[in-house]
């Protein structure tokens, strides 16, 4: 299969800051790829370079077999992270305008706009001004603006941000549908759950460098920590149970999990998972015993240093602030 996007040794600097650092990336045609990474990792910069909105300082980018996206803009659908609509324009006019800008013929365009609006459950907004729509509705209109011209390659930058669960589900269904039609789709996201459900392929970057690239199954097996989650029956003594599990052959370490009353046992690399589980059950009665699968979240947290993510840092800061606030209240 040919590649829809081929990025080779691309570097982009803003002043002294290196936003993207010698990035290599291949997106096979027809794949549905998740593009992950903490905030500020260089995702949007990479996508903007793919779209030729920014030009790379070094390296080359081939899009749909051409030397730059400029030559194939009409075959690409792009939903930017910074997105909006013409507030005074009517929804129908806006979508038709975007379609014509992307080289769609005017004949039959109106019917096409209608059918798409129907598909995203916005049947009666055609004659409304964009500013009259709610934020969620505007997001759907923006999505339609990105795909109204039947592009071969669809690039969605944070398509789920700001959507409620119902609309997020609708968006997932649309992405899957477009993928089934044979289009190549890349989307960047923070919502690891969505990526896990949708993608056949994942790549992750951090500090402008690629740190992960492969299919979901490959990544899972690569990062499988071989961890058992154990919930001992009460009455038997929690610490006693922990002690007996630690003695089972193949168990590397046992520690208290975040959840109250559960233990986690990390196994050695060569441990026989089935044997270990049998041994644990025979040693101490348990309410629950399961082998945990690696989630993307595990992988993400494993690979990304907390300091790398602005979000994590911010969350920590605000948490500290909240605690301090509580203390002050207690004193008063």
């Amino acid at each position, binding site marked *: 299969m040919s590649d829809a996007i081929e990025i080779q040794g691309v570097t982009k600097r803003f002043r002294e800051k290196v936003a993207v650092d010698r990035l290599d990336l291949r997106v096979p045609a027809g794949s549905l790829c998740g593009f992950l990474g903490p905030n500020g990792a260089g995702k949007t910069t990479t996508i*903007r370079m793919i*779209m*030729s*909105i920014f030009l790379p300082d070094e390296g080359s980018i081939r899009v749909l077999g051409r030397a730059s996206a*400029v030559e194939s*803009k*009409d075959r*690409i*659908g*792009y*939903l*930017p992270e*910074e*997105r*909006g*609509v*013409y*507030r*005074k*324009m009517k929804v129908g006019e806006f979508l038709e*305008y*975007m379609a*014509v*800008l*992307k*080289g769609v013929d005017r004949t039959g365009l109106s019917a096409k706009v209608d059918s798409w609006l129907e598909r995203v459950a916005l049947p009666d907004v055609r004659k409304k001004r964009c500013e009259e729509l709610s934020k969620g509705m505007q997001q759907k209109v*923006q999505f339609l*603006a*990105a795909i109204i011209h039947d592009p071969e390659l669809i690039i969605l930058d944070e398509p789920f941000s700001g959507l409620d669960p119902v609309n997020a589900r609708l968006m997932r269904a649309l992405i899957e549908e477009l993928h089934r039609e044979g289009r190549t789709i890349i989307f960047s996201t923070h919502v690891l759950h969505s990526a896990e459900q949708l993608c056949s392929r994942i790549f992750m970057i951090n500090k402008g460098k690629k740190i992960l690239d492969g299919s979901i199954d490959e990544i899972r097996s690569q990062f499988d920590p071989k961890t058992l989650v154990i919930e001992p029956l009460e009455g038997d003594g929690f610490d006693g149970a922990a002690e007996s599990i630690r003695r089972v052959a193949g168990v590397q370490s046992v520690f208290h999990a975040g959840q109250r009353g559960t233990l986690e046992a990390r196994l050695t690399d060569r441990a026989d998972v089935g044997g270990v589980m049998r041994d644990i059950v025979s040693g101490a009665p348990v309410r629950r015993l399961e082998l945990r699968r690696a989630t993307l979240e595990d992988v993400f947290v494993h690979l990304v240093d907390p300091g790398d993510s602005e979000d994590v840092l911010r969350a920590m800061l605000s948490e500290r602030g909240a605690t301090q606030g509580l203390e002050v209240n207690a004193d008063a």
Partner: protein
Amino acid sequence: MRKILTIAVREFRSTALTKAFLFGAVVFPLLIWGGMLGVSAMDFKKPPLEGKLVVVDATNGSKLGPALVQYFDPEAQKQRAEQAKALIDQAAAQQAKALGKSPEQVKSEINFAMSAMGINLEPAKVVVELVPAETDVQSLKQRTRTGEVMAVVRIDERTMALDPTLFIPEQPVADEDADPSRDLRRELRDKGGPGTYEFIQGTQLRPDHAGALRQGVERVVKDERYRRAGVEPMTVSALSQLPVVARSTVVTDTGERSSSEGLTRMLPFIFLMLLYMSVMMGGNYLFYGTLEEKSSRVMEVILSAVSARQLLIGKMIGQGLVGLMVMAIYAGLGMAAASRFNLLQQVPMDLLPWLLVYFIIAYGLIGSLMLAVGSAVTEIREAQSLFTPITILIILPFMLMIPVMQNPGSLLARAASFFPPTLPYVMVMRLSQPSHVIPLWELLATVLVGVLGVIVTIWAAAKVFRVGVLMYGKPPSFGTLLKWIRHA
């Protein structure tokens, strides 16, 4: 190219086909224009002068009272109207010959101008009531209050006893401030000195009717003065109607051409305003449009379909058409007004193509700068500091207006014709001066300099635009913009 045109069409439609624009730029001027015509048309149908005039003639010999009766006599009025008509016919025939028009056309134009100026040849029905000289004026005042009498006029020897050193020109001087007789008139009126008479009226009397009555009094007073001086009044009026006309000729390098006064003096100013308004209109829409695209975050969506260069060119074409439309509307209204007042032959039509050329230059410069500022900021108030240099460029032509109008061939005017930001405005002002001739090489050279200026400005604006459109956050300073131009 198709994409550029699509953008241009959207820009034009989203600006020019909105209710606010149609009202501001089209309906409003039309309303004012229509309103002015409507008011003047209404005024033409003013009621005829009808009513009673009470005259207290206290002069020696009491000749003025009967003279006023004679003045408002229907037969005498008819005679005067016929004389006036004959004069108009004569003037119309002369002017028709000079302008190569039909006498009827000229006559209708003269009639229109006369009615616009409030000259009425319709006979007035004024009953003049002569009362004895010793009648108490206070009792007469009461009659004006009730409206039974239009006005009371009291003339006595004080009116006639004119100090010969006090000379009051009969015709008003063009520049009223410089009229030496103005203060004198006021003094006479306030103090009731020599030459004054009493004119007492009620509130119902229309100003134009009062004027017609005063005109009559003035006529008979003057005639009596002529008579006392031993001159036949008819001779004076006949002599004063003989024309004195200046034939002015301007000598230029390429020959001679006649010049006319009036509208032509205003032409440089009119053309400057026309150019300025349309350029600023287009430029403003470019600024606000770009700013809106940026702040509504639709910019990157558009850039996914077109390049920054295509967007920039499309926007400039679209809003340029808006500016041109505005210019066409105002120019059209101006010409309609000029033709209504018989001034159309004074409008230099050969100037219009040049106006278009210099519009493109002026708009290309200011428009691309405004576009660059709009793309660099996220909010209007951030644009304030960036606008300062542009504002200076915009004010420059106005600072040059007076010197260029007074001396269009001066070194300053010619130098400003080669400085791109002032070039289009100064050239339009120079071109619209009939007494000034610009050599062809200079015209072409200024256009060349202007086009080069536009190319450089658009090139720089495109660099700012390309960087600015996706730059959010801290507003850039002017220095930052220069950096973008250097590095982008």
